[in-house]
């Protein structure tokens, strides 16, 4: 089967560092950190009281009251960001509805509303059952498809923090294989008490803004948001005169089969997945300009990822910046991979390598280039984006201008 070249013809973004693609792009250029004190729920019992919340968010800025009440916070984010990408691509009505699909990665989804239901249930109070409507992440996928009349493929990847990068890789494959003409691919997730309390209970949340690859880092900062990209074949996009932001060259994914929460300390599986992604993309490692890391800021993750870079890039590893946009956006869990993939495409278009923020000092175990001192200008055309997850899921995307 001849694989079609897959291009990106629309982008959408909504997160704590920027409420649309332009705002987020400016935040990347200005190295603005979206991690601030949280007020979405009571965080006072926890050592960490910060995160990257979408502040001053009013659903009525985007939806009428009836629609806003029906959609969970997660469903709203998904429809907003996918809508921005679809409008940007001007793809509506171009293809048969069954040739246009949605590939989404999700996480805790409508748990934010579900928690109100559970708390009330435990207190013996009868709450609105509609709070449970979006409890599973596939609801956002359905809502996106329904809102934009996309009758083709509908699927939700649910591999925790690698969900949405896998959803993009898979969405690109649906187009490359000719099974769909257009796929809007990305991810969505929201801050929830479940994940905030959960990661705090595992003692992997940094009380200060996360500082990936820095000395003294203590873990993640949580975030929320959504990001999507519109994927089409190059020939179709060119034929309709669409703006092309870049390409999804390929992806790879695997399970480490090691541990539910701890990464394999050797970094071998991560390196294998990165190499496979390059191979599926027909790209040599020497062509990669920089890597948008999973880069959570946990002591172990950052060492493992640095180790994998050395295996993949060999002597050149120190010349391939490994940066973490999570230092801006927080760790957006199910949406993280998509937010980072879209951030990578925006950065490629603006010819920059983003800065890894909140530097605290040099960690001898993280001895590569992390752009801690500021953004770098670049003319490189190809970058990678890594995502890892609970359960040992690893995904790597290869993206280009």
């Amino acid at each position, binding site marked *: 089967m001849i694989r079609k070249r897959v291009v990106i013809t629309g982008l959408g973004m909504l997160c704590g560092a920027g409420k649309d693609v332009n705002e987020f792009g400016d935040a990347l250029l200005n190295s603005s950190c979206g991690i601030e004190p949280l007020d979405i729920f009571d965080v006072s019992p926890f050592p960490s009281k910060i995160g990257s919340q979408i502040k001053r968010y009013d659903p009525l800025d985007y939806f009428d009251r009836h629609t806003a009440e029906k959609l969970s916070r997660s469903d709203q984010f998904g429809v907003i960001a996918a809508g921005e990408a679809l409008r940007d691509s001007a793809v509506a009505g171009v293809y048969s509805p069954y040739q246009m699909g949605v590939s989404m990665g999700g996480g805790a989804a409508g748990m934010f509303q579900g928690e109100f239901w559970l708390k009330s*249930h*435990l207190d013996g109070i009868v709450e609105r059952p509609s709070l449970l409507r979006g409890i599973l992440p596939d609801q956002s996928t359905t809502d996106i498809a329904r809102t934009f009349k996309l009758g083709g*493929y509908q699927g939700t990847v649910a591999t925790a923090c690698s969900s949405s990068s896998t959803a993009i890789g898979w969405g690109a494959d649906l187009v490359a294989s000719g099974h769909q003409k257009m796929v809007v691919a990305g991810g969505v997730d929201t801050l929830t008490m*479940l994940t905030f309390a959960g990661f705090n209970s595992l003692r992997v949340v940094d009380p200060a803004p996360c500082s990936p690859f820095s000395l003294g880092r203590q873990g993640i900062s949580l975030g929320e948001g959504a990001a999507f990209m519109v994927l089409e074949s190059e020939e179709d996009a060119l034929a309709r005169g669409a703006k092309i932001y870049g390409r999804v060259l390929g992806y790879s994914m695997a*399970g480490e089969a090691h541990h539910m929460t701890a990464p394999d300390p050797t970094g071998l599986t991560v390196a294998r997945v990165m190499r496979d992604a390059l191979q599926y993309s027909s790209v040599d490692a020497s062509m990669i300009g920089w890597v948008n890391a999973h880069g959570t800021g946990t002591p172990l993750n950052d060492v493992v990822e640095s180790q994998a870079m050395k295996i993949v890039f060999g002597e050149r590893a120190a010349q391939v910046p490994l940066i973490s946009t999570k230092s801006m956006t927080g760790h957006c869990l199910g949406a993280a991979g998509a937010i980072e993939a879209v951030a990578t495409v925006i950065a490629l278009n603006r010819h920059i390598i983003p800065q890894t923020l909140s530097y605290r000092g040099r960690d001898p175990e993280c001895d590569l280039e992390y752009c801690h001192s500021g953004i770098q200008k670049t003319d490189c055309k190809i970058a990678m984006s890594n995502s890892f997850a609970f359960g040992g899921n690893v995904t790597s995307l290869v993206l280009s201008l």
Partner: protein
Amino acid sequence: MNNLIKDIVITGLSAISSAGIGISPLKELIQTGSDAFTEIPSDVLGAEGYFWGKATGFKVSDFMSPMKARKMDRSSQFAVAATGLALQNAGIDMKLIPPERVGIALGSGFCGISSSAEFLTGYFRSGVEGLLPMIFPNTVPNAPASNASIEHGFKGPNVSLIQRFCSAETAFLMACRFIEEGRADVMLTGGTDELLPIILKGLCALGQVKRSSVPFGEGCGVLVLESAASARRRGAVVMASVESVRSIGMLVKGHEEEAVDLLSNRLEECSMVSFSGSARDVPCFRSLAPSLPTIDTGNHIGRSLGMGGLSLATLVASLPEGERGLHLSASPQGPYYSVAVRGGATV
């Protein structure tokens, strides 16, 4: 979408359901026209007369040590056990096959919800002192596939999917594609689902648990997909070959006929149809297969989001040599799937 599949065969099956452990008890249940529903204890919903397809015959101690079982949620226990049984059924010894060439794509229904509720209940009742970190890793829907991969050593593609009643079919499609692309030689696929009181309570609040409707069920159905070349190399017994996977996300007004044409999938050549999810309630599906023998596992063991793996496995196990079977699955708001398989094809 119409994904025509070549050179992918099914070499192993397993089932854990309210019918018991294995495909045979499930087939027998269907053949006798009976069901394996039991009454939901009245304290769960505060009323009597409700039923569920609870996998009461599943004894986790038959499959793993108590220490290991304690760390896993129920759907992970199902997945670990069912993938182990499927490997056994396929005659696959993981020591004899590169682990990077074996992957898993699993439909994950309500997986993680009960653990999430349990974890949060600790917090809501006792504050941070009530948080049990050991539960938290099981709150993710990919816990079943990941636990199975850790237990059996699958280092190939690893993915969990949720898409309403078609979660298992969505995973099946992806598993086929990974073999087609050469990302794996063997993919374990299907779906898993657990049914615990808090899930029932939530479904009841949403008005989805009724005395008159088909009960919800739980269990895990796994199929071993393999490239024909891999099956040939190791002399595997081929139970069926996959011919095509077709899907649409939802019916679009004014384009209904186009959808029915796509999903009918050469139905006239089929000798058997299986229904999953709400497929039997979908008018276009009902009209597609009015006179063929049908299997509807939901009527016997219950329905749920990840139960399509059990339906598919039952269809494969029931297909005579050379006969074509069609698996139809749907959810009320979409998606819709039609999967064609041919029994006992040679490789």
